[in-house]
């Protein structure tokens, strides 16, 4: 049962894809080739990022992370989150394993939520795309709204969540 549950989303989506191919073979074919294309991107990006997460897990000392992103980090926490999220590459889901490892190492929830916000709205490579598509004024508004908003979401999350409950499952261990 648990196995079916884990693969549920994948099974439903595969059925949808088969349905699409049956109804509209042309669109279906597009979907298949797009899926394969993004699979290539994912398997190019993800393994090195996960190795990086593994290395962070082994080498970065808890006290170091607490100093830069911990409860009393204040401005440094914001700065580190900005740097990590802003220089990032890749889709949002790649940020999740990084975020949870930083949290495990003692980072404050506020900076983790802010880091995820920076990753989604203000990573540099994407900001450049945005400027060329909509101009710098629009981009500036987007980035500023995003940064302020997600910082305050972080403040709220810090009050609302207990770090221990968030860390319940260790995704770096296979045994459950």
């Amino acid at each position, binding site marked *: 049962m648990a196995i079916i549950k884990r693969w549920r*989303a*994948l099974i439903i989506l595969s059925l*949808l894809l088969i349905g*699409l191919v049956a109804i509209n073979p042309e*669109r*279906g074919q597009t*979907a298949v*080739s*797009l*899926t394969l*294309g*993004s*699979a290539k*991107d*994912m398997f190019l*990006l*993800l393994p*090195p990022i*996960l*190795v*990086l*997460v*593994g*290395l962070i897990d*082994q*080498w970065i000392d808890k006290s170091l992370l607490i100093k830069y992103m911990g409860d009393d980090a204040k401005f440094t926490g914001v700065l580190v989150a900005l740097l990590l999220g802003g220089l990032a*590459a890749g*889709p*949002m*889901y790649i940020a*999740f*394993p990084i*975020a949870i490892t930083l949290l495990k190492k003692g980072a404050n929830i506020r900076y983790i*939520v802010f880091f995820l*916000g920076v990753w989604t*709205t203000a990573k540099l*490579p*994407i900001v450049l*795309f945005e400027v*060329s*598509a909509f*101009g710098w*004024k*629009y981009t500036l*508004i*987007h980035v500023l*709204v*995003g940064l302020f*908003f*997600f910082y305050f*979401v972080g403040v709220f*999350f810090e009050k*609302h*969540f207990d770090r221990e409950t*968030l860390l*319940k*499952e260790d*995704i*770096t*261990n296979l045994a459950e």
Partner: protein
Amino acid sequence: MQSMILYSVIVILTSISWLNDRKKTKKAIIKAKNMLIKLAPELLAILLFVGLSLAVLTPDVISSFIGEQSGLIGVVLASIVGSFAMLPSFVVFPLASTLVENGAGLVQVSALIATLVSVGFASLPMERRIFGKEFTYLRNLSAVVMAFVFAFVIWVVLPWL
């Protein structure tokens, strides 16, 4: 190019780590492998979702229901589409400018952009697996709220853009 830099950095870091402590390095790589295995079903689901959304949501389809006159309903529709679809971020902005050229409103497109990049219906299973249910739903919900705030700000400043 991006992945070349990424791989070079990782190879250098791993080598430094290996020279300093083989045991730790081995452990780091095992952990990376574990994460990949553990998240595999969720990751594969994301891939299928990306393919499906790109194939179904062509610019014509989207601009047809978030035109300049669609108002708040258009913003709501744009956020729903943006939350469900999942597109690589380098596709998001070229697509968005095509939408505006095809007659979609900039306010509505802004809501679409904001939800596309930070709300992930497709990555919900993966996010839940890592952070738990409550965190995941609240974070995605807050990102939807952010999309509305952003669309509102763009609506206010539109005459000056």
